[in-house]
């Protein structure tokens, strides 16, 4: 008698496990990171590699605190991060405001797609750094060339997401709206645009990821500020602890921003998965 309700309870709980991380899974994630830290600590403690190449966790922590307090080479870390994120945000802002309307229009009208699509398909698989050299020649080594580079890197994923979103839209949504008296313009703004929002958001998140990696690489190629430049500069002077700090900061900011975007997505597109 006692076993039956217990079995039932487990059955009821199981669908939750699929959507939300259970305690076991969370612990596994934490354990993974503890192991990585432990291996790092052991490697440095046993001096398997020279301390110049692999600094100890403690030294990296101390460097992190110094960089937070005094900055790198006399320039505050916030200035570097600020410079990086200014480039990123301007470029992504431009990408969203141009790629969303162009993508939706391309999905709507084949003629517009015929104009834009092949160009996007051509440059999308190119590594952004390949044409970055050209952009530097044309627009100078300052922020302008970087913003344009990131804009191009971010444009493609958003554009492609929008085109496919319009293609996949449930036609009955559009037909029913027309039968309820909506004109072309209102069908677009009240039906097509919201119906495409989930995919637009996924596109923006992908664009952010692409733009962020491109940004760091671009700063490593040519810059005098930014988190990527800091890492490159440190490597020139063999300051491996600074490189570690830089990479960890990049990783964490990336995770935080993606979490922020996901949070926004949940708030704005609360109905995702119910289309």
């Amino acid at each position: 008698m006692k076993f039956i309700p217990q079995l039932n309870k487990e059955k009821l709980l199981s669908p939750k496990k699929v959507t939300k991380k259970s305690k076991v899974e969370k612990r596994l994630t934490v354990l993974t990171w503890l192991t990585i830290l432990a291996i790092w600590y052991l490697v440095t403690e046993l001096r398997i590699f020279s301390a110049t190449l692999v600094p100890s966790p403690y030294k990296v922590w101390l460097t992190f605190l110094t960089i937070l307090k005094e900055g790198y080479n006399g320039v505050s870390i916030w200035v570097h991060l600020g410079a990086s994120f200014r480039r990123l945000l301007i470029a992504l802002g431009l990408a969203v405001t141009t790629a969303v309307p162009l993508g939706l229009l391309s999905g709507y009208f084949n003629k517009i797609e015929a104009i834009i699509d092949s160009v996007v398909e051509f440059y999308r698989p190119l590594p952004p750094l390949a044409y970055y050299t050209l952009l530097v020649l044309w627009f100078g080594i300052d922020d302008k060339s970087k913003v344009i580079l990131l804009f191009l890197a971010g444009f493609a994923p958003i554009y492609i997401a929008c085109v496919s979103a319009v293609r996949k839209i449930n036609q009955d949504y559009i037909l029913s709206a027309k039968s309820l008296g909506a004109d072309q313009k209102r069908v677009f703004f009240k039906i097509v645009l919201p119906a495409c929002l989930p995919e637009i958001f996924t596109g923006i998140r992908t664009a952010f990821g692409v733009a962020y990696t491109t940004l760091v690489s671009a700063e490593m190629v040519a810059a005098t500020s930014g988190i990527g430049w800091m890492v490159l500069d440190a490597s020139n002077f063999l300051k491996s602890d600074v490189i570690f700090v830089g990479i960890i900061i990049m990783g964490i900011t990336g995770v935080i921003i993606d979490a922020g975007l996901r949070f926004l997505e949940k708030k704005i597109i609360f109905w995702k998965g119910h289309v």
Partner: protein
Amino acid sequence: MPRNGENELLIDINNLKLVYGEKASSILALDNINLQIKSGEFLCVLGPSGCGKSTLLKTIAGYIKPTSGSCLMQGKNIEGPDWHRGVVFQSPTLYPWMSVKDNVEFGPKMRDIPKDEIKKIRTFFLEQVKLAGFGDKATFELSGGMKQRVALARVLANYPQVILMDEPFGALDALTRDNMQTLIREIWKENNTTIFFITHDVDEALSLATRIVVMSKRPGKILKEFNVGFTHEIFNNNSKDVIYKEDYFAVKNEILDLIHSQIEV
């Protein structure tokens, strides 16, 4: 019970022919359809699956243009979809980014009706489909039957001349379907609407319709029309007992024979 405006010719379909696709792979979906829908009617269309029932509905709705022949509403050619002909789809196409309330208000809003009037309309129809108090819910929180009731209220809110329904209760369970039939009958009686209703369920057609049209297999033609009145009896007696009567069975068997003769084995 003669009603105001009854027998006025609303939809007039003459020699309608509809071909899908281009020359080589074209399919003749509808052929030589002649059908008149008068206001106040509850017209049910029955036929084997793939016979073009939905195509006929889409033509009346204005989603597709006839290849030849004409489809008129109050003497004017139907050029495209508009709010005089409301459509209820088999799967309720509620907009999940809008609340139940906003879904029902969508039609009147699109027609720029004053705000306070929209509110009155919404309250009235949500009550009529027995969903008062559900206005602020998200559409995906509702059950299948409730969703279809919202879809119905959304169409009713425009006071269309005719409501086109494409197997609206086809995806519902038997009990819910029974309740929905009672509801649609009451609304039809109360609002004096005209309904064009596609179904594959002979009992559903017999218990709702004032007229039943049976279509042939593809290319869809109209085989026979039946004038029936069981829906009035069910409404007046508030009971479905009529379905056990002799004359009900006679019509039902005739319709079933007709449909079965169209299905290839």
